């Protein structure tokens, strides 16, 4: 059965599934491979994209009334898909139709060209990311003192002094941007608190080195806000 799923961007994804929309909605039903696939996907991606957590939570919260409505809509889906297809292509859907050799060759050429373009775009993006990363590293190094630069080069961390409290914070650059800031006890290397704070402008990823620089500048310039916004956890 075909069901089309309209997204906020007016996109339409066709899904071939057992009970159409109901399989999407019924995240707790693990009886079929399809719904397993959908619900497992939600679980697997929660760590990568926070919005998936929202989606998964919402899926689980769907009421039985809504599920009944989805079942009803799923029953209508075949007919709707058919008329949609008919409207778009000006011909009726015929499941027994086979592509001719010429049509297959034409489709293969279109797809090969698109695949080539996709690879070129991916390579271009990888180059841009690499260049942005190098520039971000240079910028971070420009803002570090000699002592900070030395520990950064040698140990992949550097220590920053809080602008208000004058407490020392260690920014670890080897463990990503999550929970990589530790508040140190006095002049020792022991930490009593771990802080997690990073920036996602418009949801777009930025180079890690820019994140470390933003953390450094905020600790020095607005320590109170830094501590207020960050997720804090006790260490030891």
């Amino acid at each position, binding site marked *: *059965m*075909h*069901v*089309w*799923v*309209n*997204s*906020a*961007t007016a*996109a*339409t*994804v*066709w*899904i*071939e*599934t*057992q*009970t159409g*929309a109901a399989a999407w*909605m019924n995240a707790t039903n693990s009886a079929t*491979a*399809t719904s*397993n*696939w959908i619900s*497992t*996907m939600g679980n*697997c*991606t929660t760590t*990568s*994209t926070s*919005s*998936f957590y*929202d*989606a998964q939570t*919402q*899926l689980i919260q769907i009421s039985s009334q*809504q599920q009944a409505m989805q079942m009803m*809509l799923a029953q*209508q889906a*075949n007919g*709707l*898909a058919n008329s949609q*297809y008919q409207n*778009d*292509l000006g011909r009726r*859907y*015929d*499941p027994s*139709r*086979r*592509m001719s050799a010429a*049509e297959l060759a034409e*489709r*293969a050429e*279109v*797809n*090969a060209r*698109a*695949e080539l373009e*996709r690879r070129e775009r991916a390579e271009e993006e990888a180059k841009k990311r690499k260049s942005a990363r190098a520039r971000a590293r240079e910028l971070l190094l420009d803002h570090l003192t000699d002592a900070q630069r030395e520990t950064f080069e040698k140990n992949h961390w550097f220590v920053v002094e809080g602008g208000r409290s004058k407490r020392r914070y260690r920014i670890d650059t080897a463990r990503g941007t999550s929970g990589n800031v530790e508040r140190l006890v006095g002049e020792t290397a022991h930490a009593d608190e771990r802080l997690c704070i990073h920036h996602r402008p418009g949801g777009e990823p930025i180079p890690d080195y820019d994140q470390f620089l933003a953390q450094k500048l905020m600790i020095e310039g607005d320590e109170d806000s830094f501590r207020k916004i960050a997720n804090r956890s006790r260490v030891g």
Partner: protein
Amino acid sequence: MKIEGHTIAADEAFAKYFGIEDQPGYLTPFTRRQWPLAKYMNGARVRKVWQDRTGDIHPPGSLGTVLGSIGALGMQAGYFIEWDATPHVATLVVEDKLGPAK
């Protein structure tokens, strides 16, 4: 995300995460990315080998071409298939339902 008038948040994030976008020459959006653990590569010809009891629109024996695939660890892959019966339309199909064309 809208399913026939019902809205679920985060479909845009879903599409972005998997690189699902409009493609020239196709009526429906899909991704041309290839899931590294996908059994069928992009461009491979596949045959429908199994359908749900309630019946899919494409019966077993239908032939199609893999346009892209998505997935995550611990689950079977999903494939965007252009069925011969519905050219210019990409349909998301789980791996269980597919077999090699020959």
